[in-house]
């Protein structure tokens, strides 16, 4: 098994953190994993993305020719990546701001209104973790426990309040999607 996911959105939406937290969770579960961030002449408000590969054997290339999953937080990223997704794969769309629909009929499409859900929780900054709740539930690559463990190690033990709101965001996304 080898699964590649591209996480993409505006710089500032936390897409690199989404990929990193997921990659670390997969490492905790004993998978081989690579995390490749986009870097370059990035600007605030520009697009950012990262590719995470998870496999039970050595990963040849950290680059994804055909990602199995696309987690897309904004319209421009949907335009950039929608043709690359593998047939039978799945989109996770931030339906709060993505107005377009993917031009693909051979994939699953899951919409998550991350902004609305995060606002209900009282913190718009946790939209990315809301999305991760939906992603972790539907992809079943890592367990919710491993993901939360990864999140905890990123946030550190000092920030209890931050962990609490992120845990709530994760659960809200997890429970939203069926």
């Amino acid at each position, binding site marked *: 098994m080898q699964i590649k996911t591209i996480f993409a959105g505006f710089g500032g939406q936390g897409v690199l953190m989404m990929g990193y937290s997921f*990659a670390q969770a997969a*490492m905790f579960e004993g998978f081989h*994993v*690579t995390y490749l*961030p986009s870097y370059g002449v990035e600007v605030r408000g520009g697009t950012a993305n990262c590719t995470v590969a998870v496999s039970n054997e050595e990963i*040849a290339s*950290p680059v994804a020719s055909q990602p199995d999953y696309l987690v897309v937080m904004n319209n421009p990223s949907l335009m950039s990546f929608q043709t690359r997704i593998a047939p039978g794969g799945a989109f996770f769309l931030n339906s709060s701001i993505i107005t377009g629909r993917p031009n693909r009929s051979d994939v699953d499409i899951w919409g998550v209104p991350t902004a609305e859900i995060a606002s209900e929780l009282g913190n718009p900054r946790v939209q990315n973790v809301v999305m991760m709740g939906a992603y972790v539930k539907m992809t079943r690559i890592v367990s919710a426990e491993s993901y939360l463990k990864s999140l905890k190690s990123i946030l550190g033990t000092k920030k209890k309040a931050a962990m609490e709101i992120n845990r709530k965001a994760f659960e809200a996304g997890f429970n939203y999607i069926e």
Partner: protein
Amino acid sequence: MSDKILIAGNWAIGEAAIRAGCRFYAGYPITPQNELTEYMAENMRRAEGGTFIQAESEIAAVNMVLGASAAGARAMTSSSSPGISLKQEGISALAADELPAVIVNMMRGGPGLGNILPSQGDYFQATRGGGHGDYRTIVLAPASVQELADLTMDAFDLADKYRNPVMILGDGMTGQMMEPVVFGKPRPRRYNEKYVLKGAGEGKSKFIRALILDALRMEEHNWKLVRKYRVVEQNEVRFETYKTGNARLIIIAYGIAARIAKGAINRLRDSGMKVGLIRPITLWPFPAQIIRDTAERIDRFLVFEMSTGQMIDDVKLALEGKGHVSFYGRPGGVVPTPAELAKAIVQEYRR
């Protein structure tokens, strides 16, 4: 499992260097290796007796490393392509002075300032000495973050063993990418302290110099270096073979390009095409013998580089006219996908 951490390549080099006893780092910022300088700035102070200097230029940094090395420190500098060009004078001096040092080059697109994306255009510069004069630099080409960590530790040992500069030749992608790493246990440092300059003290004065005006003495020094290089060629060649057993076509690629090649090979193997890989881990000394031996039973080779074709020269030299060598390259910072490379391989395979 708890000692396994998810870490970016540039950081892994820094951590491995400190664990290996590197106690002097001087560098000057350049993308895509800034995270290494950043890591050393933050972490060298953890190391007892550690010194971090952000130098005023790349040339200053490499010469500070030369000084630290002459004083007996395990010393390292790092940069990316244009910055490595600036360091060549110092690398040539390190080779001439027979001083150990580790130089990291996380290659980017070139020539000139080029861009900041992953590339492999510095192969000639790295393996042919790079600076002026008759010398060689040991060149290690890691293909994963784990290997970056392991080879960084090895680089310091090799530098001490041969009293020679060792280059770690990575690229923007291996530097930026994160993978799980378990840091190995560094071996105790073994080196002959006799050359180290310790300031005024007992005994005869000693000096390290590379200005040898007498022709015969200079020639003697040149041949002495060559004898050392022959020993390196004998002892230090490293490579990996991948699915070469029943292969009909062999890909030769190093570093991140070899990772992409493995991806392509796995795709092709799934559709029944017998393709394998030889991955040089040391670029100098180059694994010529394994390529020559492989040519006894397989006569088709495809060299894949993220350049316009440089290592292909070494492959041809190794083959001594045997076999058929083709080339696929993407220079300038383009990183092809395994699918794209697979297409190029299929064309060659079906020929």
